[in-house]
């Protein structure tokens, strides 16, 4: 038996022993996931236990080095872990911007002290992070951000406003882009700061979404004092870190394109439109679903190929835009098809039968996939300019 197969056996028995049965069912809605944090709100005891056990092994972040709280697994081992978790239908123990976004950036750009302080907290789900990038006048054109951080000898003094800050009202810390040089060109005066959302001068106001949830906020900074040691990388060199982090954010958003691909849309649609001579009774819907599944399959393989190319040294950061664009559009397509297949059942907004409008709310939420993390149009600009070398843009 190969080492990998032996590892698979160990993983399987560990998961069978340690993953609570409640954590082997799909989450009911957007709130039924575990975000961790200083004041965690666990939906169940099982959720807490599952996070503790996975956090302890570092399997919330299987590929991070052990000294930073990770699992220290190779890419192949991490794949085995994912496969075994999928086989048992285990939920992710932790949903976290720290894992998807900040962690990879700190691993690359953080000081040793920063890695030792922040990464284990992320791995164990002890600190919940939010992302302070967008501002009212800096969305797609992120580099025109105006939130300023003044050098006050022993600290930075931060003033300004962020917007669309997901879960700012529930986060413990923020990774924030600030302007430290107003004279320099717009990309060259930006720094990457970390600070505690409990600092005096930080306030948040929730914004409601079309899905009826209010997961994001306006975030205000008024004379917030931030220790000098909380600067990541060099001052005025934050843009490079910001972009690197975005490639990770984009890959995670793109990955929404493949979740749930196991349950065929065709099966779902069959419940409402029925079968006719062994095939879905609505031929046009059936055709769209089939095309969607072809594309979904290709997307899954492209995610794998991108990872393999990166490992073989053939990768390019801009490739994350290919996956972000395609995955976001794919996920929107899937939700449109689920609405088509669901008919009036999928239009229910409240009540137990529809799990409080799960289908409709997820459909509406999916529209953000092509906006958050850089819009689809911005991804196409990046592909045209960086991958195809077209002028202007």
């Amino acid at each position, binding site marked *: 038996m190969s080492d990998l197969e032996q590892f698979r056996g160990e993983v399987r028995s560990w998961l069978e022993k340690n993953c609570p049965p409640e954590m082997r069912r799909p989450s009911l809605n957007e709130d039924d996931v575990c975000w961790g944090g200083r004041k965690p709100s666990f939906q169940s005891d099982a959720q807490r236990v599952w996070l503790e056990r996975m956090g302890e092994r570092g399997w919330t972040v299987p590929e991070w080095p052990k000294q930073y709280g990770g699992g220290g697994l190779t890419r192949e081992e991490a794949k085995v872990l994912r496969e075994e978790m999928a086989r048992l239908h285990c939920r992710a123990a932790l949903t976290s911007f720290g894992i998807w976004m900040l962690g990879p950036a700190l691993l690359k750009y953080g000081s040793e002290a920063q890695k030792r302080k922040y990464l284990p907290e992320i791995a164990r789900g002890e600190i919940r992070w939010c992302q302070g990038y967008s501002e009212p006048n800096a969305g797609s054109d992120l580099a025109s951000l105006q939130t300023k951080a003044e050098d006050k000898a022993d600290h930075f003094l931060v003033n300004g406003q962020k917007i669309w800050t997901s879960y700012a009202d529930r986060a413990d810390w923020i990774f924030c882009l600030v302007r430290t040089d107003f004279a320099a060109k717009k990309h060259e005066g930006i720094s990457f700061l970390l600070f505690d959302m409990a600092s005096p001068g930080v306030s948040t106001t929730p914004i409601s979404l079309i899905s009826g949830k209010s997961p994001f906020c306006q975030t205000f900074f008024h004379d917030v004092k931030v220790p000098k040691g909380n600067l990541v990388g060099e001052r005025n060199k934050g843009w490079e870190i910001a972009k690197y982090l975005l490639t990770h954010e984009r890959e995670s958003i793109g990955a929404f394109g493949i979740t749930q691909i196991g349950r*065929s849309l*065709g*099966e779902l*649609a*069959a419940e409402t439109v029925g*079968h006719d001579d*062994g*095939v*879905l009774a609505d031929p046009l819907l*059936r*055709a769209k*679903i*089939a*095309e969607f*599944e*072809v*594309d979904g*399959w*290709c*997307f899954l*393989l*492209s995610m*794998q*190929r991108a990872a*393999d*190319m990166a*490992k*073989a040294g*053939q990768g390019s950061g801009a490739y994350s835009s*290919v996956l972000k*664009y*395609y995955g976001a559009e794919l996920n929107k397509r899937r939700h449109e098809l689920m609405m088509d297949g669901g008919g009036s059942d999928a239009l229910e907004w409240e009540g137990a039968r529809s799990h409080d409008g799960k289908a409709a709310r997820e459909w509406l939420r999916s529209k953000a996939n092509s906006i958050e993390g850089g819009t689809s*149009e911005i*991804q*196409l*600009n990046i*592909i*045209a*300019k960086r*991958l*195809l*070398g*077209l*002028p*202007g*843009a």
Partner: protein
Amino acid sequence: MPLVLSDEQQMLRESARGYLAEQAPVAHLRKLRDERDDTGFSRALWRGFAEMGWAGVLIAEEFGGVGLGHVEAGVLLEEMGRTLAPSPFLSTAVVAASAIGLAGSAQHKAQHLPRIAAGELVAALAIDEGAKHKPSRIALAAARHANGFRLNGTKTFVIDGHVADLLIVAARTAGGIEDKQGVTLFLVDAKTPGLARERTIMVDSRNAARLAFENVDVTADAVLGEVDEGAPWLERVLSIGRAGLAAELVGAGSEAFDRTVSYLKERRQFGRAIGEFQALQHRVAQVYDDLEMARSAVLKALQTMDENLDGAGPIASVAKAKAGQAAKLASQEAVQMHGGMGMTDELDIGLFMKRIRVAQELFGDVQFHADRLARMRGY
């Protein structure tokens, strides 16, 4: 297995690209077309392919081949797609060599494979009977006769059919025309009396033929595989052909695409390169994405074929469907973005659109494969 080409496979690609650029650039196809060449390909080029080891790429060394795999054959097809190189490579070296190698008797292999590898034998698969690919429907009848079979019926869209020395014919030996059971594959010498072949001149200037069988008699040892049990063999051979065509489509689509991106950088209107216009930028970026998706599926299909051919049916369909869609889009946008030039015969772009149209039709178009996958998934 990682979804990337190995170093050896990349070297094969480089050498194929160099060879084809020299020996079979697009001008080569153009010349055959303009001269109305009867053979439809160059025997000298085909001998060259044999010398390079390409004609025997999938043939075991004991039969004179080089014994490489489907990924390597796909790499070659992708490069042939880039220059639209016409040759019996797909019909003979990929499809027929696989059929004989998989289903053939020891005698079939010894008799035919070395000649294919040497570039001496052209072989063609005769499967379709109507204008749309439908391998589940085989009407051409093979009735028991003397100590063999007598074939009656017609075949169409037989690639290289009019120049083939040997035909692999899917025929009905039992059951109704839609039955899965009762199909048998026959190896038929192209000179057998009663067989009439008519070349059909196609939009892509590549070879295809209609075949009419009128009391064509073959002996029992012409059966490839077992009597009545041809369908599973056909399925495997078609998967191989589909993945190969998908590779060719990615090559042809990518070449049309690359030429278009270059054109957008050169062509100036309104005082600037038209590649500055976002209306065009976004569309080429989308084409690029689709081609990348197709490329992933094609590589996976080829790898799967080398690892577990019997499990490769679904992924071959995914690859063929996506490659067909992506390459068609690439060629349509290529014509559009070349403006008036794109409509001219002088520019190669139109030739790419024509070949892609044919290759996406052969062995099942996008709809065929999407439908097939939907059925496999129970809807």
